[in-house]
């Protein structure tokens, strides 16, 4: 059997506002690096082929499934995980609080990925219809909630940030 020589590469990037550097096995996915090297365990593994959205992170402000993203591609990027949303004293961000308030969390495994996509949606500063929100959130699978309260949480936060009252159903 041919002996495999492990190829390493140094990756420098910004993780949740802090510049970091790691030397990683080039075979690692971004999920692997975030979970194993940085212990960002909010990044979940649900399928490892980009179908469930549990490993979603924000890269330069856009949502990506980190399971199908090579760790070495993180070089030079700004990456945010759910850990980065929390305030210095453990304060929840508005969208996290909305997930709590709207009972949008059950088993909690899809939650981190959903919240990060919601962050991307909210940071656009736009007002979306329900159908548009459903589409923007459709890269995440959830088996517990039927998505209903997740929609409510995102919508409520969107209107709050826009300074508008939430329209009646």
């Amino acid at each position, binding site marked *: *059997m041919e*002996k*495999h020589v492990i190829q390493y590469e140094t990756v420098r990037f910004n993780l949740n506002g802090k510049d970091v550097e790691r030397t990683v096995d080039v*075979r690692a996915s971004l999920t692997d690096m975030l979970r*194993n090297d940085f212990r*960002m*365990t*909010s*990044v*979940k*593994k*649900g*399928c*490892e*082929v980009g*179908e*469930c959205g*549990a490993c979603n992170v924000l890269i330069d402000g856009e949502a990506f499934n980190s399971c199908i993203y090579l760790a070495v591609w993180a070089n030079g990027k700004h990456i945010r*995980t*759910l*850990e980065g*949303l*929390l305030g210095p004293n*453990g304060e*929840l961000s508005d969208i*996290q*609080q909305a*997930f*709590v*308030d709207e*009972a*949008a*969390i*059950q*088993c*909690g*495994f*899809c*939650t*981190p990925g959903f*919240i990060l996509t919601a962050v991307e949606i909210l940071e656009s500063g736009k007002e979306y219809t329900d159908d548009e929100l*459903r*589409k923007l*959130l*459709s890269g*995440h*699978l*959830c*088996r*517990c*909630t*039927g*998505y*209903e*309260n*997740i*929609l409510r949480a995102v919508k409520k936060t969107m209107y709050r940030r826009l300074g508008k009252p939430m329209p009646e*159903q």
Partner: protein
Amino acid sequence: MSKSVGKSVVRVDAYEKATGRAKYTDDLCDRSALVVKICHSTIAHGFVKSIDTTQAEAIPGVVRVLTCFDVPDHPFPTAGHPWSTDPHHQDVADRMLLNRHVRYYGDEVAVVIAEDEVAAVQGVRALKVEYEELPFVLDVQKAMEEGAPQIHEEYPQNILAHTDIRRGDYAKASQEPGLIKVEGWYDTPTVQHCHIENHGCFAYMEAGRVVVVSSTQIPHIVRRVVGQALGIPWGKVRLIKPYIGGGFGNKQDALYEPLCAWCSTMVGGRLVKLECTREETFVSNRVRHAIRTHIISWVRPDGTLVARKFEAFSNQGAYASHGHGVVAKGMGAFPQLYPCDNLECDCWSVFTNRPAAGAMRGYGIPQAMFAGESHIDDICKAIGMTPLEFRRKNLMPVGYTDGFSKNELYSDTFNQCMDKGMAAIDYQRKFEAYRNQTGPIRRGVGLAVFWYNTAVWPISLESSSCRMVVNQDGSLQFQTGETEIGQGCDTAYSQMVADAVGVPLSDVHVVSTQDTDVTPYGTGAYASRQTYIGGFSIMQTAIALRERILNIAHEQTRMPVSNLDLVDGQIIRKSDGRVLKSLGDLAMESLYSLEHSQHITAETTAQIKSNAYSFGCSFAEVEVDIPMCKVKLLNIVNVHDCGTLINPALAEAQVHGGMSMAIGYGLSEELKFDEKTGKPLNNNLLDYKLSTFMDHPTLQAAFVENAEPTSPYGTKALGEPPACSGAPAIRNAILNATGMAIDCCPITPHVLYRKFKEAGLITD
């Protein structure tokens, strides 16, 4: 006193989960773990003749290769049922850790233990497995035929079990002149739970015992199964269950914990982890039983049911797992939901060369309701009665009592639920308006009810244990063997504890993790039993704890116990309502007293010998695009009577999830197999059509609260019921829209295309 039960308090684990801090199995596993990967069979049926491990063992990083020729000879059962000390009631022990006789495409034949995942996967790929292939069978009725491949030697014609119900004289009653015969065959698919966290576990040895941390619903049961599989005393096994990313019944089975534990013992007790891939989860865990049901009803023109026949053929797959209990539960609903004097009911659980079917949300009831409630609408169509009228006339009446379970329908639940659902969806107006439509796009509304009984008594043991410990500040921890799997029982239990003990909710701390070394015995999360069963042990333990506290209060205040009360964490003198001291002060003094020091704790086991019906219904509105063969679900509402709501917001959320599962069951989800090889075709989340965010309308959940008199909290099943009636409601809505009675689910475009073509609604 401020009441906590009945309020929509925030989940106790919400912060942990909203921040990503909640730790699930793999989050807890040390990165030094060896990785176990399984070699699965690539044939549907046969024997492993040999496995050449040479190349695999030569791969750098591979530590150990173990095959079906290495495993201990301890057949074990896997079902998450309480153990029975009566051998006749024990689950079928048909499993080995790895199998020489492989019975489905995906069966376990070997494992590779390696230093990293890539080496383990390469090792599995490098194994050379030689098989002696045998014929296989996937269809449940073909498996019962003479000469069908024999899957387990002890079960002729592959019949794991057959049970029946006889009432009156079906043959004679059906001879009555003027009866209308309605007959149908209804097929339900193999589906999978699709919890977003795949099953995974890790194991290591400590002090001569094996410790397993697992994503399971049933830690105490899995501990027993690991002991059985390894042939070691059960006390040598410690099982720990952290937060889990959903279960829905799949994790109500011992999955790979026994194998993982054994692997650790085979590498000197080193830490090993075994995580299923999504593809493995679909095939090599458990699935929902596909059940084919045949129903004949003999009906008078006025809608009276005179005689009925029911036959259900349950596709058990390769191993017994939960076995016959699933289809038997479905059959049990049949004579109760629409009582009829003359019945012939039979059901069979039959081995086939498909993945093993086990427990899944609803436990036979979604299948039975799809068949039964579709059939009711077929009857209505045949006799010209409206679905609502027929149900009002024939559904289980108030006061109905089941002789076996002693369950009783105390309230006019069905009518109350249907009235609420009808109003929510404007059913009656739409039902009439949608009749006799023409044109390519048509709308319809449909209705279905469900029957569900809570928990497993009297079929098996029902017990729950609870422990409460008071802290120096008057707050308390409590724990039970019943598990949080996302459904919210930690929160509901905390609310129950607060009220029963007499402390504010903020002073109640739940120990969420189950650890069989410290958690009192309880069988886990299944059968929608948590709030009902847990309620008994919580109430009983709270009473014991209060007694303890009030006795100490008597010592400390010299007031008689009869004049003391604990309200909102304060010791009260009942006669004048004066606060004598806080529970915190009492606990502090009690613990550190130089005269009589004692820590304040209570622990009890409640054995429950009652049970409760939990009923409700679904209403659906669809739009059918006939040329495109597509159904769009426009509206869906579920109405439940699960007794008194403990936490309305969480109850509503749980109903949404069940409705979502029912929508998938009705319209899109099916695990498919290649007829030629038995190979699964779509065991991934792209090809298996779980509903996405864009496949749902707004989900409406509503409740009728008739307090359940047998429960200390007036509660009963809610976990599984939401998944039970949605699919037939959708099916019946399609019938209303198009006149097409579809006899299977999921009702995909493929099914509609054939049906519409046959009916001449579309032409090519």
